[in-house]
């Protein structure tokens, strides 16, 4: 582990020197400012990965974050999941009935929820709640010097604040997505029963008859990426917030916007990649 750590340190030193040069040469232009932000983000990800594998993992804080991200987001995800399944069923049923394919409804809803709608909509909801929470919390900790106080207390703020949050988001968001999928199916069954009569067992057996393991795999893989993206962006925006109170709002807002955008982009990339292997 010594060599990669030294490499990252050298990169950090080089980047500090480059930043200093840019600072001394006056106000950076738009392109150099964008490149600086990109480089800072890459270094931030590098430092987070490095700290993830270092000793003294903050397990207690990690557990607390899992609770905050997982348990405290359950109500929001529950409502979203149920409504997602319900609306999808209510909207699709008339079309399927028209083509005489009403029995395909459970399978179609299951495939839509598991492959695309469940992961993406739940991730977007989590980007709003978790991403903004992280951005605002770490931003206010930066403004009120709490991150500096951690540093002078010989604690590593990257390890304590960032690693724990990113890992907790990466672990909990896939679980929340699976939970939302399950509730979405329940919502869909409820929707199917508004104008029809189908038992829960029949509905689920029809649904899973059309879903294969390979439908789950890309969805599960991308949900880990969604979790990582939301954790990284929320922490990065908060951790690098400016000094004024205005920066807290900016950090929270930009965390939501950027993580939502990245969720969509990651979705596109992961779907393209997994399609190569699945098809």
């Amino acid at each position, binding site marked *: 582990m010594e060599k990669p750590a030294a490499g990252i340190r050298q990169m950090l030193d080089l980047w500090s020197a480059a930043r200093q040069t840019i*600072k*001394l040469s*006056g*106000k950076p232009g738009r392109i150099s400012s964008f490149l600086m932000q990109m480089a800072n983000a890459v270094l931030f990800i590098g430092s987070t990965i490095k700290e993830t594998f270092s000793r003294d993992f903050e397990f207690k804080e990690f557990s607390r974050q899992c609770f905050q991200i997982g348990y405290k987001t359950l109500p929001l995800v529950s409502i979203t999941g149920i409504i997602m399944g319900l609306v999808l069923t209510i909207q699709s049923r008339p079309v399927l009935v028209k083509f005489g394919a009403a029995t395909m409804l459970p399978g179609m809803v299951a495939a839509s929820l598991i492959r695309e709608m469940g992961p993406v909509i739940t991730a977007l909801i989590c980007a709003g709640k978790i991403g903004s929470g992280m951005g605002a919390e770490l931003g206010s*900790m930066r403004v*009120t*010097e709490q991150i500096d*106080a951690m*540093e002078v207390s010989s604690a590593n703020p990257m390890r304590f604040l960032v690693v724990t949050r990113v890992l907790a988001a990466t672990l909990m968001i896939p679980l929340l997505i699976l939970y939302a999928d399950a509730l979405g199916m329940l919502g869909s069954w409820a929707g199917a029963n508004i104008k029809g009569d189908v038992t829960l067992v029949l509905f689920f057996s029809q649904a899973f008859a059309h879903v294969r393991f390979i439908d789950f795999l890309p969805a599960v893989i991308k949900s880990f990426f969604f979790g990582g993206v939301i954790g990284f962006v929320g922490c990065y925006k908060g951790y690098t917030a400016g000094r004024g109170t205005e920066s807290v709002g900016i950090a929270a807002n930009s965390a939501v916007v950027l993580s939502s955008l990245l969720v969509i982009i990651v979705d596109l990339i992961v779907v393209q990649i997994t399609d190569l292997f699945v098809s």
Partner: protein
Amino acid sequence: MNTAQPEIRNTASIGTTSDKPVIEIISLKKSFGVQEVLKDVSLQLFDGENLVVLGRSGSGKSVLIKCIIRLLDPDGGTITVLGEEVSRLNSAGLGELRKKIGFLFQSGALYDSMTVRQNLEFPLRRMRKNLTQKEMDGKVREVLDHVGLSDTVDKMPSQLSGGMRKRISLARTIIVDPKILLYDEPTTGLDPATSDEISSLINDVQKKYKTSSLIITHDIQCARSTANRVIMLRDGKVYLEGTVEQFERSTDSLIKSFFK
């Protein structure tokens, strides 16, 4: 603009217990972009003394104190703390040095998501890893007694007043028995009575824990009560150095504007 030259010099170790500097800063420089905040600052903090650094807002006082503990990296000059040149330390060395330095932040910087007990245990768990829970409880009780807030141990920072937060923050600073204490505007935002309490607490801490303290402030009452020696910063340089009495007698208009 006052162009008068400093009139008091060579007052090192006045009222201190030792001639040995625990902090020595030589020609410190720090800029942010094109703005030079510290141009050429040199000073010494001696063992057992309270050194107050005065200056107007924006004169670089907080930057100076943050460079000492390397929360900011200086652009030039050297800072030697307890015989170690700060800029040459690697992260492990810096961590070891920081164990000997306490830093009281201007805002108190208590961790909002933790109780007072967890705030106090936070540095202990990282700096004194061999302590048992019982020993930690004892240390928490001791420092809370010292700042007179034993009954707040299970409260959240949001339930405390500004003065109480500062006291708890001071308790968190002294709980690891530092050799040097750095105070960043310890009385800012407090009423005069609470400011006086904090000032006497600073003196009590120095007597009880035998610390050396660097106090950044623009509160003259705090400077009067705590300082063995005073340094005034102006335009990123040391403008004047002396005792409180010497500052009080000064005819310099900038000094008089502070000490009227």
